[in-house]
């Protein structure tokens, strides 16, 4: 019996026949085993998604899942959007902050499960008991900012929260995102393209109800303690003032910053893209997601020059790294404008920056010529060309049509040589950390469930500090203890992704407090050990999902560049990974996970985790 935290119902929508069902959350899944968020999504997709369906077929599903702490007083909560990714063909969970998750719960729903495909463009209206599949002909083709404005205006309510796709999602750009509140996105893995394939332009949510809390006094006390801990935490304080933009100086200094398609790992223009510059010249105010004391978001305005009129929340580190340094661009106003374009058009800035940088390298090497690019001089540092390419990708115009397929498919269309510097793992474009000076990050990318991703494990802090979690001393460029660190972080992060807690607060809040808040909100009686086991359970379930989809061990590797081209300059000059280093880490990692040498979870492991139902 769910006593609090959860909103109580799950909404099932079939766009093919227009069927709408409301199911009691407690009858839907075992909350003790999966809690919510990623756990709920992984369980549904394992159980109900037929294997090997095309990501764009009407059989694919799209799950919007909140967690029992989403929308509560727990600091910084989000929601999870999961599907089978059109980039990787694997499980994909992407997270979005903002206010949509909270609003969905106020409307009475813990999750929305979307199946099927509508014949014509529609949007989904969710307001308490009132669920409508509405015509979206007038919204089709509009950018994400205009869609939100239009829905609010036609419904006469400023407080409506909208998740929508832009032209890129409509055109099935494989890395199209789902956008909320203009500047908050479920960015990675192409969730927006799946939404587009279903002819679903938007979800518009308004909730007039409330979220019950099991033990109100206990919960308020615990949450306030957590807030105090966050506001006193040094890392959180830095994020509060500088956002994620602060990271660029650190990564540039540490040879971790992808520069000119990951050729270099330090950028001479990093200081021009720094948080100090943004604060002085660009930012006007701080922005926070629902219930978050950190406000890592910064709203900025460009008031003079070529990009006058640009208004965007950011620029986030990943965007600075991939659309700035990785494209060789140091003009923060150009990056801000490109950032806004991606938000409007519906493109993930990480994948977009990555694939544009790849095209730039191809151009400089003569693999692409001006004939291929419709006259664009795609040299690194050419901001005009970068901006034009963003637009071409979103509309699948000219060469943009090829880039829209993602860096893996694009490189497969070109010559074999280009594959060695197509920077992806399993089809997901790599984010803002070079692995040559961070073997642990190499393992993290390779083993991340959704492909090359930095949010499942981030062992860099241990490598730089030189100390493993068990206190032993580790060398920065060695492989010792990396398997242990990566597994530990993956399990912890996955557990937190069920709540759904933002990973920027995880360190300051700590798992003990999360578990206490979860218990006080829901009336559950979970221990920290059981909570972490939930993380491990979901990690294994998603692994089984990916194996069912045909994941091969050969795919658990890095682009050749990581092994072949040493870092040219900086503190890690000369560094590159050796293949046997990755093999050693992987072997150790599989063993630690209780997986066989091919990376398949053993029967015993699955039984031990209560995953009997996945054993065929």
């Amino acid at each position, binding site marked *: 019996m769910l006593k609090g935290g959860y909103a109580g119902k799950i909404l099932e929508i079939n766009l093919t026949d227009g069927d709408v069902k409301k199911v009691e959350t407690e009858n839907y899944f075992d909350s003790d085993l999966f809690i919510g968020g990623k756990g709920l999504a992984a369980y549904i997709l394992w159980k109900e998604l037929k294997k090997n369906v095309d990501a764009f077929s009407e059989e694919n599903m799209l799950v919007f899942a909140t967690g029992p702490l989403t929308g509560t007083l727990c600091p910084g909560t989000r929601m999870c959007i999961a599907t089978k990714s059109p980039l990787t063909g694997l499980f994909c969970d992407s997270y979005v902050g903002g206010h949509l998750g909270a609003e969905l719960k106020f409307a009475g729903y813990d999750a929305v499960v979307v199946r099927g495909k509508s014949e014509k463009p529609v949007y989904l209206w969710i307001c308490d008991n009132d669920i409508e599949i509405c015509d979206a002909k007038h919204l089709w083709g509009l950018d994400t900012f205009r869609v939100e404005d239009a829905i609010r205006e036609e419904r006469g309510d400023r407080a409506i929260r909208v998740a929508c796709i832009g032209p890129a999602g409509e055109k099935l750009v494989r890395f199209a995102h789902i956008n909320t509140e203009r500047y908050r996105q479920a960015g990675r893995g192409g969730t927006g393209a799946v939404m587009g394939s279903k002819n679903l332009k938007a979800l518009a949510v308004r909730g007039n109800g409330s979220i019950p809390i099991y033990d109100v006094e206990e919960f308020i006390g615990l949450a*306030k303690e957590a807030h105090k801990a966050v506001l006193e935490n040094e890392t959180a304080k830095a994020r509060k003032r500088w956002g994620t933009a602060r990271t660029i100086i650190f990564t540039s200094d540490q040879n971790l910053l992808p520069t000119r398609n990951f050729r270099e790992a330090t950028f001479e223009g990093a200081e021009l893209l720094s948080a100090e510059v943004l604060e002085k010249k660009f930012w006007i105010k701080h922005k926070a*997601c629902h219930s978050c004391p950190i406000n890592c978001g910064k*709203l900025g305005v460009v008031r003079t020059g070529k990009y006058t009129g640009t208004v965007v929340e950011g620029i986030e580190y990943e965007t600075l790294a991939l659309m700035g340094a990785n494209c060789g661009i140091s003009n923060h106003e150009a990056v801000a404008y490109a950032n806004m374009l991606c938000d409007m058009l519906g493109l993930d800035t990480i994948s977009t920056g990555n694939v544009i940088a790849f095209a730039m390298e191809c151009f400089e090497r003569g693999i692409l010529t001006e004939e291929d690019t419709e006259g664009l001089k795609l040299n690194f540092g050419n901001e005009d060309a970068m901006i034009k390419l963003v637009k071409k990708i979103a509309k699948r115009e000219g060469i943009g049509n090829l880039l829209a397929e993602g860096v893996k498919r694009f490189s497969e269309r070109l010559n074999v040589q280009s594959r060695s510097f197509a920077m992806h793992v399993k089809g997901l474009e790599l984010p803002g950390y070079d692995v040559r000076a961070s073997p642990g990050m190499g393992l993290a990318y390779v083993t991340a469930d959704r492909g090359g991703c930095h949010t499942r494990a981030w062992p860099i802090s241990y490598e730089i500090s030189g100390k493993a979690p068990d206190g032993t001393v580790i060398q920065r460029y060695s492989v010792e203890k990396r398997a242990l660190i990566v597994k530990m972080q993956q399990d912890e992060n996955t557990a937190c992704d069920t709540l759904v807690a933002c990973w920027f607060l995880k360190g300051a809040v700590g798992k003990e407090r999360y578990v206490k808040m979860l218990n006080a909100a829901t009336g559950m009686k979970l221990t920290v050990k059981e909570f972490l086991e939930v993380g491990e359970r979901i990690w294994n379930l998603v692994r089984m999902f990916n194996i069912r989809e045909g994941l091969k061990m050969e795919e658990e590797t890095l682009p050749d560049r990581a092994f072949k081209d040493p870092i040219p300059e900086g503190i890690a000059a000369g560094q590159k990974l050796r293949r046997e280093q990755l093999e050693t880490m992987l072997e150790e990692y599989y063993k630690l996970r209780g997986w066989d040498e091919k990376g398949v979870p053993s029967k015993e492991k699955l039984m031990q985790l209560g995953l009997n139902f996945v054993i065929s």
Partner: protein
Amino acid sequence: MPTAVVVDYKICTGCRLCEIVCSLRNEKKISTNLSRIRVNSFPPGIDVPVLCVQCDKAACIEACPQGALERDPKTQAVTVNVEKCVGCRLCVEACPAGAISVDSRRNTVFKCELCGGEPECVKICPTSALSLVKVPFDTRIFAKKAEEIAEELRDLWMIPKEELTHA
């Protein structure tokens, strides 16, 4: 002395912790609609919290035909006597800030009553955008509609009236 929670609009981040803690404290559950403070959002990312500023010369008290709105002598807050309130909404219309809401379940109005003198929203606000002040003048000068404040912030930050398109 007139006492009210005042807002530094420039530093509100739109996190809504004030709404959450307000409804939890006053209604024992979390609900934007039941919060006494409401954070209004305006594109492109402007956040304007609205709550009662406890006007000294209070239009709501004057408008109430039932005498259901009273001044708490201890906290200086304007409080609602739910026994007397009939939900006629004349106070809602009279309020210069738009800070009074209707509880549709009970058909009575509700508003910020300063949590008995120690407002929870002020305590939780992570940027100190909210503060409890005592001033030697009528706090009514703080009462403004959210739209009006959003317009002022737009001017302050020179946010262009014409938005860029992706063309």
